[in-house]
């Protein structure tokens, strides 16, 4: 977005639509996003907000019958743009995993149950014409980096490994072909708290060692805040706030981001103990014409309901899709911010919707 930055992945107007009986579901709604080289970019949002769609779009891997449009540009070097959506099938096949790799949501069943872990590494090497000897050496190194016993893991079948081991083996497999970019969709979803935190430190370590660009997707804001350099917050199929981790956690300006933060008493609170935000996200078949958060927002007014808010660039790094970014902190106070003394008796459940409805009429 900001010129002069070393962008590695540039997403512009990315849109995913599904033809359904009820109508057309737009599950990714003109998303713009630039990922800089060697950063960790975190994407958070509630379930169904389109995070996985955005992740899949980055590899042009949205599954049928979803249709992806817009433009996704990959920069192997700053002056060498590759338009991912224009690639031939074979070029795309090579780009995936060699340049941009992915760890899927539901990673625990990303291995073929009838093959050994080692066979997954080998078949990937030969599919991309990489020398098996040196490729397997890299596999062993990656597995050791992830605190796994290489020989033992390579000889195992998936069901013989614990969830955490499988998860780490999958990360090793994703890094096998030395990709520039690693997209991780909920890589910690199925793990317990301790395992989640230890995977995070491993991811940080790998990022530094291999100079990776990582797109890290989670519904767990505290988790992402601990890891990412920059954070994008998704709501109803689009990004509503993007900024550095400090911008988004300490200076959040979008009412939805603030509601998310308010639901978390402190950043160490596990996701499972968070309070839900009242109200429901819009249906992808009929997204409101105005701000998609208006129905749950305490600040919503007629303008919000009528016209989709454009991005407001607060700083070079920090942008918010909201008409009232300046008013948001006072309207949705956070317990760990000083201004929260305004309404100290607020129960945490009242994080938005009820007064929002009245305020908008």
């Amino acid at each position, binding site marked *: 977005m900001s010129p002069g930055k070393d962008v590695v992945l540039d997403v512009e107007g990315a849109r995913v639509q599904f033809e359904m009986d009820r109508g057309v579901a737009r599950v990714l709604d003109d998303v713009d996003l630039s990922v800089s080289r060697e950063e960790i970019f975190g994407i958070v949002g509630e379930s169904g907000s389109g995070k996985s769609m955005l992740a899949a779009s980055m590899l042009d891997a949205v599954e049928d019958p979803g249709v992806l449009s817009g433009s996704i540009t990959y920069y192997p070097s700053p002056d060498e743009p590759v338009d991912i959506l224009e690639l031939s099938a074979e070029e795309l096949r090579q780009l995936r995993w060699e340049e941009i790799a992915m760890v899927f949501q539901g990673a625990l*069943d990303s291995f*073929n149950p009838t093959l050994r872990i080692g066979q997954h590494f080998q*078949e990937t090497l030969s599919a991309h014409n990489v020398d098996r000897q040196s490729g397997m050496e890299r596999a062993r190194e990656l597995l050791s980096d992830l605190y796994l016993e290489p020989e033992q893991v390579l000889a195992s079948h998936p069901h013989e490994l614990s969830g955490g081991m499988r998860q780490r083996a999958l990360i090793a497999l994703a890094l096998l072909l030395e990709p520039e970019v690693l997209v991780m969709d909920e890589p910690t979803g199925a793990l317990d708290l301790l395992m989640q935190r230890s995977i995070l430190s491993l991811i940080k370590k790998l990022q530094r060692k291999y100079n990776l660009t990582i797109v890290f997707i989670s519904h767990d804001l505290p988790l992402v805040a601990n890891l990412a350099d920059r954070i994008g917050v998704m709501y109803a199929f689009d990004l509503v706030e993007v900024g550095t981790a400090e911008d988004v956690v300490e200076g959040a300006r979008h009412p939805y981001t603030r509601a998310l933060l308010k639901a978390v008493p402190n950043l160490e609170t596990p996701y499972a103990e968070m309070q839900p935000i009242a109200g429901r996200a819009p249906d992808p078949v009929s997204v409101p014409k105005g701000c998609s958060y208006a129905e749950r927002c305490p600040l919503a007014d007629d303008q919000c309901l009528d016209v989709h808010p454009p991005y407001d660039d607060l700083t070079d790094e920090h942008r918010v899709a909201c008409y009232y970014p300046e008013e948001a902190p006072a309207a949705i106070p956070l317990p760990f911010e000083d201004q929260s003394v305004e309404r100290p008796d607020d129960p945490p459940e009242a994080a938005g919707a009820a007064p929002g409805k009245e305020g908008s009429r």
Partner: protein
Amino acid sequence: MHWLINRLGRAILTIVGTVSLSFVMIRLIPGGPLDYLRGQIRNQNPGMSSDAIDALVEAQAAINPDQSIVEQYVSYMSSVFQGDLGTSTWYGDPVNQILIEALPWTLFVMALSLLFTFAIGIGLGAVMAYKEGSRFDYTFSSVSIFFNSIPYYVLGVLFLFVLSYQMDLFPTGGRSSDAVPVGFSVAFLLDALYHAALPVLSFVLTRFGFQALAMRGNSINVLGENYLRAAKIRGLPGRRIAFQYVGRNAVLPLYTTLMISIGTMFGGAVILEEIFAYPGIGYYMFQAIDARDYPLMMGAFIIITTAIVAAILFADLTYGLIDPRASGGETRETY
């Protein structure tokens, strides 16, 4: 190893148990076969003394009247374990000889039936899954369900009547033509296939549908798996995905079905071989029941039981080789 012995032991116990049970049933149950035989002889020879009738019954059932039932059981079982199934009262030949000569023919028909059932089922099921929701899928799903709902013996009788008697396209009985000398020649093989065609067709047509629908369901499940999506994005070649990913994972669950089909097919063979007058194990079993030839009946029964148990044991022992998730063995149960 311990597990293997355990499995083998259980298999043998199953066989011994079933054989003993049928031995006892034949002899002891009131209104059982022996009483029936006795009644029949009495009806045909109203003047005969009951001692004479008993003697006749014992001769026909090959029972030694001087022995108690327990002694009879022990002596029968011990000769069975020595491989001696007695002498057929109807044919006058050793039961062993009759059954050993018949067995290859039954196995021939069953092997062909299984081969075609599974080849057609797996192939068709895979294509249906691949074209899920298409006209092809819809048509062949219906066809599969239709054929699967016809009993094999009904189709057998129909084939025999129309294709053999009415149209004279296939033989009405027998395993091979007298004109073709038995031996390893192409002519003999073709002749054997010609004779086996209708029984095999009756089996295959009434069974492929079940396998096709099972394969279709399994494949569709695999197509939705995460590992399949991951494999595609890793850029694996289409052939590897089709065989190592979809094929292997979809066929695996059919393996146990295959082995169990061997059992049910032996059961079906008794009836089909009778319909097509095809002298295999089933045919002789039917003849033996008709003629109250107990040694032959028991012998055929033992062979069929053993084959079924052996097939299931084989499935159990080899499943671990093809499905790594099952290789633990100890905690698994197939029967």
